[in-house]
């Protein structure tokens, strides 16, 4: 083979399209403008401690510039006449736009001239345009993710083992760089260890290898225009883990790391449990006044999964797929991981089986399937894991699934538990196919859960995508206590599914509800028709899990309405046919079945006092929204959220709730800075 092809590529790459002189002048003018502003602002205004927070109140100059940049990049969104391709580019960054102080996309600053995208390459992108209107801000990142996203694929082109090892070695931060980054932003912001000198002070487009899956907060919807709201349940808790870790380290988490529903669903709730004869879970709807808005009400939808007695559960086959690459050699990673799995092993029943597969750019079975009664052998194998080792081959995930399939017996549940610090180069050679592969294995009966360890390199988006496709849970583990919660207290739930593909659809009654807003679940939105389509994947409920969804609704004629009636719309007021607020539909599949079952319940304007469980869930929804900088909370702030959470502490046997209150106190202090 000659290098002809390379030369051909080289030649082709030389012919860059001609530079547009206007664009060139514009860009340079902008650079000069920013340079001048930077000088005026003085060197002291860059407050690295606020580096990671882009709320606009009192934002320093850097935040201003970043905001401006964000708007610049979203310019195509504003120029509604631009091509579909330009709109798509805009989609990626619509989030900061929506977060502008007034909640309305504002006119761009003078140095960002609004110009339609240059037409020269004329990309014909119509076939991929999901929806040319910018109004639903890409709320279906969830489904998008399952299409093997770039984030997932970029890590999956498995480099040759040797090259990768070297890459890892390079990735270890030099001591100097580490110190500097700590000073600048305590929360591992400077994760792109290869180029620390750029990150320490820059403060703008933040370099960080952490990626978070999120979408713009759900907007208020007008019932008359869009009466139906559909989404998949979410039992992941990774977002809460990241929030806690950030706050504990003394900085507010990046708003895009906050998925409100995961904050709410992190906590175990004692919702009414289903009877023995009923569906595997029971739904309870509570209507209550909104703490942050006197003119609206909250509709709290709770699903409680049945908790079979531990003795009744089928035997578990677990394959621990453990990342032992060099980067795992950190007290918060491999050692914590060993500790976590040891906790889990001690909770298993004698007939459960455990196997361990380790990968470090290469994969190998560390422990053949071993019954849990032989806990000593399992623990010894765990203990012997060391970071940095490498053997031949790079087939971690495939090997783990193969082992799991070999263990499967009748009526048994097989699950691969992937533990990693973020690089999912787990060796499926076709990167595009990874999520599809995980989905296929799920259909064949082997589930996948993902546990994230350590910060800085965490690929949250990929974790989400993998766990969602594998019908598993994505959890982020930062402390031994968290390991206990995920792996021990919720052992049966996390590992033993009782309902798959659980979808929720609410149809609001326009006579009673003029506007509504789903709090959180941005990444879980489904299209209306997906509800009845059993081929569309959704979240699973594990044994004993509870799931909470909260809507904020506004009655017709309320002073709290945010949208004026349409001038040319249907003027007819909807007929008051009943006092139902809406109608709740749930679909789920029993594990192993392919046809879904439907549960329907009307939502009635109950007069019952909301219980502590519902009120605590609402406090957590407030917590999440405060962290995201929600525009819907009005004056309601940290003090009110803390008070509400404290008043609804309930039993709190494991102390999770009081921990949350303490985190809120910490966030309050950080937010006040």
């Amino acid at each position, binding site marked *: *083979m000659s*290098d002809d092809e*390379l030369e051909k*590529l*080289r030649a*082709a*790459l*030389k012919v*860059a*399209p001609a*530079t547009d002189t206007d664009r*060139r002048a514009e*860009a*340079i003018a902008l*650079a000069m403008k*920013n*340079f001048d*502003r*930077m000088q005026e602002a003085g060197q002291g205004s*860059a407050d690295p401690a606020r580096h990671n927070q882009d709320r606009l109140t009192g934002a320093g100059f850097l935040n201003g510039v970043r905001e*401006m*940049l964000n708007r*610049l*990049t979203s310019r195509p969104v504003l120029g509604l006449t631009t091509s579909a*391709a330009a709109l798509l*580019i805009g*989609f990626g*960054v*619509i989030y900061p736009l929506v977060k502008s102080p007034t909640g309305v996309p504002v006119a761009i600053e003078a140095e960002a001239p609004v110009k339609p995208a*240059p037409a*020269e*390459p004329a*990309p014909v992108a119509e*076939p*991929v345009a999901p929806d040319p209107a910018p109004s639903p801000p890409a709320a279906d*990142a969830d489904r*998008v993710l399952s*299409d093997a*996203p*770039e*984030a997932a*694929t*970029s890590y999956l*082109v498995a*480099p040759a083992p040797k*090259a990768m090892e*070297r890459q890892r070695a390079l990735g270890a931060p030099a001591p100097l760089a580490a110190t500097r980054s700590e000073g600048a932003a305590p929360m591992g912001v400077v994760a*792109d260890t*290869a*180029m620390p*000198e*750029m990150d320490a*002070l*820059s403060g703008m*487009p933040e370099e960080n290898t952490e*990626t*978070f899956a*999120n*979408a713009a907060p759900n907007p208020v919807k007008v019932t008359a225009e869009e009466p139906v709201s559909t989404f998949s349940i979410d039992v992941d808790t990774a977002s809460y883990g990241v929030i806690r870790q950030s706050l504990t380290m003394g900085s507010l988490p990046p708003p895009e790391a906050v998925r409100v529903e995961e904050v709410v669903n992190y906590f175990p709730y004692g919702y009414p449990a289903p009877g023995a004869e009923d569906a595997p879970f029971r739904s309870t709807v509570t209507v209550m006044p909104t703490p942050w808005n006197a003119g609206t009400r909250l509709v709290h939808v709770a699903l409680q999964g049945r908790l079979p007695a531990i003795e009744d559960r089928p035997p578990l086959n677990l394959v621990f797929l453990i990342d032992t690459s060099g980067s795992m050699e950190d007290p918060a990673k491999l050692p914590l991981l060993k500790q976590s799995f040891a906790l889990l092993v001690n909770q298993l029943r004698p007939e459960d089986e455990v196997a361990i597969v380790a990968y470090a750019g290469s994969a190998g079975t560390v422990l053949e399937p071993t019954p849990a009664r032989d806990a000593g052998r399992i623990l010894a194998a765990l203990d012997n894991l060391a970071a940095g080792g490498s053997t031949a081959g790079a087939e971690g995930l495939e090997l783990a699934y193969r082992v799991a399939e070999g263990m499967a017996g009748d009526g048994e549940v097989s699950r691969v538990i992937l533990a990693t610090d973020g690089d999912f180069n787990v060796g499926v050679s076709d990167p595009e196919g990874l999520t599809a592969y995980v989905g296929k294995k799920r259909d064949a009966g082997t589930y996948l859960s993902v546990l994230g360890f350590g910060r800085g390199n965490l690929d949250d*988006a990929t974790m989400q995508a993998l766990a969602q496709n594998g019908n598993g849970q994505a959890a982020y583990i930062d402390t031994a206590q968290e390991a206990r919660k995920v792996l021990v207290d919720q052992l049966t739930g996390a590992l033993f599914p009782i309902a798959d593909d659980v979808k929720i659809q609410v149809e609001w009654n326009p006579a009673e509800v003029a506007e509504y807003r789903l709090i959180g679940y941005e990444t879980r939105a489904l299209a209306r028709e997906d509800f009845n389509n059993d081929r569309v994947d959704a979240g699973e409920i594990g044994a004993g899990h509870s799931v909470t969804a909260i809507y904020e609704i506004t009655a017709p004629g309320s002073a709290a309405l945010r949208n004026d009636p349409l001038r040319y719309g249907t003027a007819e007021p909807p007929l008051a046919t009943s006092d139902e607020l809406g109608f709740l539909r749930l679909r789920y599949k029993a594990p192993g079945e392919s046809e879904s079952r439907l549960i329907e319940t009307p939502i009635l304007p109950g007069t019952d006092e909301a219980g502590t469980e519902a009120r605590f869930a609402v406090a957590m929804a407030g917590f999440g929204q405060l962290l995201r900088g929600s525009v819907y909370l009005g004056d309601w702030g940290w003090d009110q959220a803390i008070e509400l959470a404290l008043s609804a502490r309930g039993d709190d046997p494991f102390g999770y709730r009081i921990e949350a209150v303490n985190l809120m106190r910490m966030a309050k202090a950080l937010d006040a800075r």
Partner: protein
Amino acid sequence: MLMDTPDETLAQSAANGDRDAFAVLVGRHYDRVRGLAWRLTGNAAEADDLAQDVCAALPAKLRGWRGEARFSTWLYRVVVNAAHDLRRRKATRARAAEGWGDWEIARQEAMAEDRAAQDWLMAAMARLSPELRDTVALVLGEDMTQAEAAAVLGLSEGTIAWRMSEVKKRLRALAAEEVK
């Protein structure tokens, strides 16, 4: 005088607030930035936006300038990172048009006549993973040595060498298909 001053000196002066030095620096490098942006994204409009973003961020970025690397190497890193950022934002929020991949779709719409060479380039690039594209953009597009590209990407030379051999493999496969 400023026209002959080395990049590194200009960068240092600019970091210290010298407006003229900064102006020279930006003027000198805009085309390179935009060229690399095009090689990384495969789309002229996106390259313009990316170059503009880089320009806008440059004053703040320069504060981090330590003179530890050559200015051009440092600048390439800024561009590569900005491109990664863009990719990542698009990947996690929406399956948006990605230049080279975007073209895969456009290809079916039939392309202009005189663009055969461009077509081949697109086909070749679309076949590579983002990592390989980055590497190709630097090594082939910018004529960097493997060591220079490694410095920009923060990888070892071995990784670059491996990636280039991977690129060859893919191109070979493409050539084989063309023969058919």
